């Protein structure tokens, strides 16, 4: 929108339009900032609660009366939190990479390649999207146990890769890519795998970046499945560890908030790194 506004500058009444442009830009800045502030404001409470002492945590004051870093110290010294962070990072990263590869291949095939049963396969895949995890957890647990996946990284990683959401989104995206590039490559005799690797993958950078963020985030914050199949504390993921601060009659909300603040940081970093790639377009003129 800012772009359209800027293009509006090239009309007859230059001075007037420049002022109008500046007004529009100013309004947009103000609106964006206000929305962003209102969005983030509740999270100030998260930070605030993590810096408060136990008796103050639920006080309505935003600024702690006796700020303390004790909660953070506790989180890192009383529990092996670094290890849990590492476990979670490892699992999330591996799942994200493998999922992106598999889903991109599947999405491309479902969007572009013609083979019998394609649409039926797609609908069947999509059907798996319609069920929520708590419903299938018991058979899934039995399956994991039968495959000896309990209490292992593999058990955390393998079932989490397969989710129809990514396939669906990538297929949508690939439906919209112009065919000329692939057709040129096919005429030159390229195999489908090479086409996928050298043409489709680079073209899908924006959408893959978006999915990288979302997959990483989903796995980073996952709770139910890790809780179900892991009993060995060495393999805990962060959300299970955070839930552990909550004892039978003791909320320990200050520790939970401190730990959650720490846990939120990596995904924020992931987002900042990847979000620019999403809005880079490598669509070029002359191709459409």
């Amino acid at each position, binding site marked *: 929108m800012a772009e359209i506004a800027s293009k509006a500058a090239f009309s007859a009444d230059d001075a007037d339009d420049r002022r109008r442009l500046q007004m529009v830009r100013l309004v947009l800045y103000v609106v964006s900032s206000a929305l962003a502030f209102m969005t983030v404001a509740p999270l100030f409470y998260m930070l605030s609660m993590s810096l408060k002492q136990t008796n103050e945590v639920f006080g309505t004051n935003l600024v702690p009366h006796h700020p303390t870093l004790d909660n953070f110290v506790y989180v890192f010294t009383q529990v092996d939190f670094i290890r849990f962070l590492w476990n979670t990072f490892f699992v999330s990263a591996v799942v994200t990479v493998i999922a992106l590869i598999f889903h991109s291949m599947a999405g491309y095939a479902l969007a572009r390649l013609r083979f019998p049963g394609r649409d039926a396969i797609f609908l069947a895949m999509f059907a798996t999207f319609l069920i929520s995890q708590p419903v299938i957890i018991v058979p899934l647990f039995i399956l994991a146990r039968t495959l000896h996946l309990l209490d292992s990284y593999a058990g955390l990683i393998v079932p989490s890769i397969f989710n129809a959401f990514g396939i669906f989104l990538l297929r949508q995206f690939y439906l919209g890519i112009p065919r000329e590039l692939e057709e040129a490559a096919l005429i030159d005799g390229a195999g489908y795998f090479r086409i996928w690797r050298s043409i489709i993958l680079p073209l899908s950078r924006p959408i893959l970046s978006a999915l990288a963020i979302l997959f990483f985030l989903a796995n980073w914050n996952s709770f139910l499945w890790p809780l179900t199949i892991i009993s060995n504390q060495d393999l805990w993921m962060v959300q299970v560890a955070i839930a552990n601060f909550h004892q039978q009659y003791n909320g320990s909300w200050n520790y*939970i908030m401190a730990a959650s603040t720490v846990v939120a940081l990596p995904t924020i970093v992931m987002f900042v790194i990847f979000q620019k790639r999403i809005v880079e377009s490598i669509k070029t003129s002359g191709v459409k």
Partner: protein
Amino acid sequence: MRDSAAEIRKGVRAAAPSIEGGPRLSNRARERIAGYLFVAPDAIGLLIFVGGPMILSLSLGFFSVSGFGEYAFVGLDNYRRMIADPLFWRSLEVTILYVVALVPSLYVVGLGLALLVQTNSRFNTVMRSLLFMPQTVSLVVVGLVWQVLLVDKIGLFNQFGAALNLQSISWLGDPRFALFTVIGISVWFLMGFYMLIFLGGLQDIPREYYEAARIDGAGPVQSFLKITLPLLQPTSFFVLLVSTVAAVCGSQTFDLIYIMTKGGPANSTSLAIFYIYQQAFLFNEYGYAAAMASVLVVVLMAITVLLFMLTRGGRFTYG
């Protein structure tokens, strides 16, 4: 932009092997094999880890399950019980209300935010990160933070209201308001996700169209209506479908209810997915829960198929 085109053409040429002696298989056969091979990893994985458990779980709908290893085939009993269960129907009502309010809100907010921050600039980088931040915190944090903000009398919202001489409202404790409060919090939590999807979708629209429109004298609103919206159809379809499915049976939907209201007050936020969980894990009625879950799946499948037929398999032609 020019360079990327050259890059792609280079990539194409690199991808093309030199062929002597002609291909062994016909092009159609090659395409078919490639199709199956590409789909194979995900298809097999989904079948084993989701499809199988899903079929097993849903087939439990015809059994009465004790939760300790006893399975008794009861045919349609669970379904008959469902029809006579007022709590089930109430949970469907609440779910429909939830979906009807949430899905359009997420669409509008997600798209609006994406439009606002779509151009690359340092300012927008910061804005995008801030707008996405609710997604990066876990739902436990979301629950706790909003609890403090919304609590009766002393929560920030009520203090603000008191300053305006308004009576304190129990946003989460009053059956009249609780569901809408949860919807509001859901929008706050989920909008970054859909903003991201729309950002990706907006990139699909070539800049030239906007240039051409500007040259023709179109204003921003007209550009939006005549270019952006139509070309966003694939993304819109995707967002509507995904948000509907997520609203009905998504994990995040369930988690929010579980953390903030546990289905209360007075069953006003007892969504179908929450009622199913209660039956399965608190009441140990796995068979009954499975029957209800099957109904949900069938309904969602119907909506999906309908939407797919309306949009010819999710393909849209550009005008």
